[in-house]
Each structure stands twice: as C-alpha cells, then as structure tokens.
C-alpha cells in the first residue's frame, strides 16, 4: 500500500481528544463487507460524524472546517478493540498519514504501519498541551520528522520511538511486500529447490 515516501511532514492537524477510541468507532462493523480497501474514509468515525439521519454532527472535529491537515491527534489508547485492518484503511483513505497519541493498541499500531500511517507516541503532558494548542489555534503547524524521530510545533518538541525496520520502510516508501520483493531472486531459487 505504501507508495508515498515519508520523511518529513509539516501540516495542520485535527484533534479528537477522546481516550480509548476503539476500532468499532473508527470504522463500524456494518461497513466491513466491502471487497476493496478504498472508500472506508467516507465512513471513518461514521457514527461520530453523522447522526442517524446522516446529517453531519457539527461539533465533531472532522466536520469543523477550521481543522484540516494530514495529522490526527487523539487521546490515549487509540485503536483498541477488534483487530480489523479496516480501521487503518479508513484513516489512510481519509487522508491522514500520522496519528499522534500517548498510547496505541498493539494490533492497530501494526496495521497502521502496514498501511503507511505513522503512529507517533508522545508523553501524556506533550499530548495534552498539543491538543490545547490546536484547539485554540487550529492553524498550528505540526512537524513530524521521521528521520530524526522528532515531533514539534511552536517552540515545543519531543522525540518518539519507532521500530528501525518499519522506519526504513516508511522513509523509503516501501512496505513488507517491497522488502520481500527485493529478495525475489533468492526466494525464487529457494522455491525451485523445494518444489
């Protein structure tokens, strides 16, 4: 999936400060019968974005035109619950490339990394301040420097951790498949020798 190389991103961001956002909220189960990866973005946070009559719920951040950008900033324990990969697909499809939180559920984290979405883990205090700043000034530019593993805005910054292999994948715009395709010749030989 990941074709866009990720080195540095500077963008405004969208705050969804709720804690424990589970994958059922990110993409409700009734949208899982599709046969493509695309189009899930339309239903990202479906039941928070629209009421039962499909009218946009005004005060939800995704419906607030003052917020924009490729970075989603969310409360602690983001992506818990069901392991559905569709949650990561929905976030990517909507246009986000980064999710910032102070904690991510394991499976979601992997699914995100497998789908060119960078999960950035920051401290609780950094997250709190960041959320407040965006809410008072939606145009705040947040910079994500993957190379140096650094997130910053205004005069604040913090370092974040990432698995070195996954970092390599994101920076080069390749994923597990590209990595394995690089070994294609060796794998072919192995396959032939073992059939």
């Amino acid at each position, binding site marked *: 999936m990941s074709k866009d190389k990720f080195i540095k991103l500077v963008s405004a961001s969208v705050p969804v400060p709720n804690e424990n956002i589970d994958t059922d909220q990110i993409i409700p189960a009734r949208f899982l019968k599709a046969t*493509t990866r695309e189009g899930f973005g339309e239903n990202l946070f479906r039941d928070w974005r629209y009421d039962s009559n499909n009218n946009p719920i005004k005060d939800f951040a995704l419906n607030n035109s003052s917020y924009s950008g490729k970075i989603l900033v969310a409360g602690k324990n983001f992506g818990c619950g069901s392991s559905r990969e569709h949650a990561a697909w929905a976030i990517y499809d909507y246009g986000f490339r980064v999710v910032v939180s102070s904690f991510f559920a394991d499976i979601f984290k992997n699914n995100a990394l*497998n789908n060119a979405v960078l999960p950035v883990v920051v401290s609780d205090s950094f997250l709190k301040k960041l959320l407040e700043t965006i809410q008072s000034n939606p145009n705040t530019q947040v910079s994500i420097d993957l190379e140096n593993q650094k997130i910053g805005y205004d005069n604040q910054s913090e370092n974040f951790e990432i698995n070195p292999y996954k970092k390599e994948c994101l920076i080069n715009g390749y994923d597990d498949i590209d990595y394995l395709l690089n070994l294609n010749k060796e794998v072919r030989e192995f396959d032939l020798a073992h059939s």
Partner: protein
Amino acid sequence: MFIDRHFIHEVTSPQAFDGLKKRGLHVFNIKRTTATADHNVPTKDQHLPIKEALSRHQVETLRKNCKEFGVELYDLGHPFQGIVHIIGPELGLTLPGMTIVCGDSHTSTHGAFGNIAFGIGTSEVEQVLATQCILQYKPKSMKIEITGTIGKGVVSKDIILYIISKISASGATGFFVEYAGDAIRSLSMEARMTICNMSIEMGARGGLIAPDETTFNYIKGRKFAPQGEAFDKAVIEWKALTTDTGATYDKVLSFDGSDIAPMITYGTNPGMGMKVTDRIPTVEELKEISEQTSFKKSLEYMGLKQGTQLLGKSIDYVFIGSCTNARIEDLREVASMVKGKKKAAGVEVWVVPGSKQVQEQARKEGLDKIFEAAGFELRDPGCSACLGMNEDKIPAGKYCISTSNRNFEGRQGPKSRTFLASPLSAAAAAITGKVTDVRDLIS
C-alpha cells in the same frame, strides 16, 4: 519465512488481490495457492445463484480474481469444494513439514501433520500472494502432553475443550503448541486435526503434532500427495520430523487422559467449559476476581444460573459442522449414535459436511439415509452456522449444541446461545432433546 502452501477464501482475499493489481504484481507461485468458497455460501440449493447480494458479490469477486491471476478455485459445485481447512488435508495438499497460511485463524488445523500453520491478516495475505513469504516474530513454544488413555464416549473434541477449560481462552497467547503423549498418538488424523484446529481458542496461533505412521497412512493415495516412489521418498523425509530428544520448551503442561470426560461449554468463550456432569462454577469459585463481571454478563447472556448443572437442559438446535468437526469420521460417529433412532420433537438438526467429498462419501456409506430416518437434514458443504455469515443462523435466545469452535456472543446469529461439544454429545442431545451424558447412551 517461506510459505509452502497458501489457502485463500472469499472473505479475506478481495483487498489482497486488489493490492496486487495496484502494484502490477502477479501471484508469486500459483501452484502453491489454492482457493475455495466457504464462509459465505448457502448450504441449500448451492447450484442456484446466492441470494444475499453482498455474499454473492464476495464469491463472484473471488471467481474473478482467481481467473485473472490463474489461481485454482474449488468453487461451488466443484467436487473438491469445501471448508478451506477440510479440503487441504483431504486433497493431500497439506503435507508434513510445510509452512501453511490462510487468512483465517483456524489455519492451525493443518498443524496436525507436523506443520507450522497459522492464520494471517489481509495485508499478510497480499504479502504471501506477492512474495510467497511472510515476516514473523518467533513465538514461544509450549508442550501439552496428554498421558494414558481416554475413556469411553470421550473423543478428541473433549480433549481440546478440556485443555482450554484448564488453561483459559488466553492461556497460550504468544505460543505455538506441540501436542504430545500417548492419548494424542492413539488418535486418528481427523481427530488430531480437531485438536490442532482449536489451538487458537486458547490464544495460540498454531498447534502441531509430530507426524507418524498414522499420518503417512492418511496421506497415502490422496489426490495431490506424492505417489508411488515419490511417496516412499517423502516418507523418509517426513520421518525425520519427530520431536527431538531432549527438546526444550518455554512451557510444558501435562494432563492425565483418564481424567477427561465428555465436555460442554456453558459461557461465551471456549475457555468456559466443564465436564458434562459438572455444575457451572459460582462467582465465588472463580480464580480471578477480575473475571467476575464478565462471568456474570456471560451467564446472563446464556440465560444460565451459576452453580447449576447443564445436564438435562433442553436445547433447540443441533449443529454438526465446521472445520473442527465436519469430517467423515465425525459424520460416522454421529450416524452410529443415531442409527435407528429419531431426533427429539421440537429440535432442529443440521448436519453440514465440511466438503463436497465428505458429503459424497457420507452418501456412499448410506449415512444420509440414517440421518434422514432420524429427521436430520444433511446439507451442502460450507462454514454455515459456525459463524452465521450465510442464512444458517440460530434465532435469538435459542440454545444450540454445536460441534464448532466458538461460542462468542452472537457468533451463530444475533443473540444465539451456543454450547460447544463433540459430535457424539451433539448427536446424543439431538435424540434426547437435552444436554446428555453420551456415556448413558452407549453403555
């Protein structure tokens, strides 16, 4: 990790094929890839178009993708069609020493042949289609030994339900399990598959059993297995796949086979099981205080009371099927139990064979006649009421004694209530209309 065999089905493959198309990639080796339609298919009138639009679309998408990429598909109506974990072994596609994956958590079934077999997600399906490889972290190892012999009326389903009831539904998370011991060795291949199948229900991604003569005899003569001289040569290699003497494990558990009785689950995860003669524990008897809330919620969902027995409880449905227990031996067991008898009034019984071949074989042996006389319905193969993705759903509030593998809330249909048990116990309940100790019927 290089993957020797990749099975695919309609539900978790469409996005993976889509990914290949986007990248302009082919399937790495179509000979190592086999597809079937199972999760979503009707079990009645399979020759007619699928009625439910989304299910039909998923199956049609699989057809299109297999055609485009040149993958062999055992589609509805094909003599080899069936549940993915049933057809692999029965066609001789599953052979000892392989690495096997499928976008389905019960891929652990294939471990019965001494394989590393596990379920994967959709991105990983794409990964394997494109590269025949998968990136993995090394799991921890666990040995579960069942010593001695098992008693009358006890079958392999009871062994695995017993193990899970002892170690809980998450007791093997992070592990691959090897099953060993005399009680395991004495089992047939099909019985071993039942055990490995449910490894995932205690959290293990895979479970395996070292191959032996039973394994080789099962494989011999199967459609895609090596034949003649090639087979003899293969057996020599397979014989090397025994457990190393002095092998060490991160964890070793041992159970006495003679302690195992016919089992039944009472709750909403497979770890909530007991001997059919036991009573449901009380809240106070739980080991973990933290479990109390979910335990109460679970019993409430099931409409059961703590501290009571299930024996004698009336049931509404009997489902004999799924990748756990829908092989020919399972159907034979059921038939031997119901021969000359009739199902209890008011009970509905579905027998859903695991594959077309199982269905054919059952007919050849006249099992269909026995089922018919007993008032059972022998249907067409598929996953059926194991997950209720097709029309085979257990109605809200109804009790179903089921030979499948998951008793989660709503698994067999919204608000359905599932008792997991062996095919023998399910057959016994079909006749009496109640939860029954099968040993009382076979004296």
